[in-house]
């Protein structure tokens, strides 16, 4: 008796399939046994059967016109995304690999840098030297306390000479710190990979829906 409510709940879910004879023999017998002692399920079964019969009695609508295909309708569809669908996944993978290679190169590059002593010395100085150099005339006209202590600190290691000589070396490095070719290539590869994958997904979805 403890299983009563659970059994009732479980069997009730199968009343429609029972009404259609779509249950296995053992389940069919089990439900028949339950129905013999459950008036609520009997009532529900009657209602479900009545609903199914009412639907079965709905008349079929007459055809508005015949649907025979004309020769024009039977022509093969215009060549759609077929070749593109085949090429796009390869493009997406190739662009992703290129992006991965570029990113890997970007990660590995700083660790291989110290082998070149000149570069190591120039690289950390670059970001700070740019504003210093850009403001050099202003510093000369209105000396402010902030930049002045900074300059001797850096010039101790890198360049003891005068400010006029110290300015030129950071220039090329500072220019490379902006939109470098490597960064541009990474962004380009990422954009191409995303575009190819997105276009492939959209075309594949469209082709699937068309069937």
């Amino acid at each position, binding site marked *: 008796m403890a299983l009563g409510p659970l059994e009732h709940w479980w069997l009730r879910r199968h009343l429609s*399939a029972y009404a259609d004879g779509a249950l296995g023999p053992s389940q069919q017998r089990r439900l028949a046994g339950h129905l013999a002692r459950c008036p609520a399920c009997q009532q529900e079964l009657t209602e479900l059967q009545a*609903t199914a*019969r*009412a639907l079965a009695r709905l*008349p079929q609508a007459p055809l508005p016109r015949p*649907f*025979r295909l004309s020769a024009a309708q039977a022509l093969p569809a215009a060549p759609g995304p077929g070749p593109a669908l085949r090429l796009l996944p390869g493009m997406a993978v190739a662009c992703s690999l290129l992006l991965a290679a570029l990113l890997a190169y970007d990660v590995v590059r700083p660790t291989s840098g110290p082998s070149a002593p000149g570069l190591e010395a120039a690289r950390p100085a670059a970001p700070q030297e740019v504003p210093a150099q850009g403001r050099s005339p202003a510093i000369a006209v209105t000396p402010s306390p902030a930049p002045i202590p900074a300059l001797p600190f850096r010039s101790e290691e890198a360049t003891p000479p005068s400010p006029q000589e110290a300015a030129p070396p950071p220039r090329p490095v500072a220019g490379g710190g902006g939109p470098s070719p490597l960064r541009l290539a990474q962004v380009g590869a990422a954009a191409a990979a995303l575009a190819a994958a997105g276009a492939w997904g959209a075309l594949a979805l469209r082709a699937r829906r068309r069937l």
Partner: protein
Amino acid sequence: MEEEEALLAQARSGRLEAFNALVERYQGLVYNVCLRLLGEAAAAEDAAQEAFIAAYRSLGRFRGGSFRAWLLRIAANRCYDELRRWRRRPLPLEAASALPAPQEQSPHDAYLQGELAQHLQAGLASLPPNQRLALVLRDVQGLSYEEVAQAMGCSLGTVKSRIARSRARLRDYLKARGVLPWGAAAAVEEE
């Protein structure tokens, strides 16, 4: 079935007349399923025509089994596309009112059937598309559970679940409007 196989083989080899023989065999079924799913005659007409065109062009992808279920699956996908376009637009009741009342009935019976048909169509329209399709294929068109599963591209268990849920929901819908006790009883009496 053998005749259908022969027609399919001819249609696959490019004989349009053979395919059109299959169209004639199934056009009533396909159109009525589209009509019950979409609830609008013009949209159902377009969906049915597009389904036959798509089926002809995709015959090479038919891997055997029930051709009728395969055709219905294509038609159902067309209807889903259309429903997606409509989004939240409520389904019209045109299908119910456009359907002819069965002949040889007393005026009272015809009234009963007309009103019951409208409630049924409105109840079907209130169901999610997947459940509506399952119920239309099973109860309105009389397909077996196996064929419904093929037409819907899902498992037998899923079909059982969808039919059970949709039938129970439609029953609740009819009961809430006071239709089920007398309307469905009348349907049962005429069996």
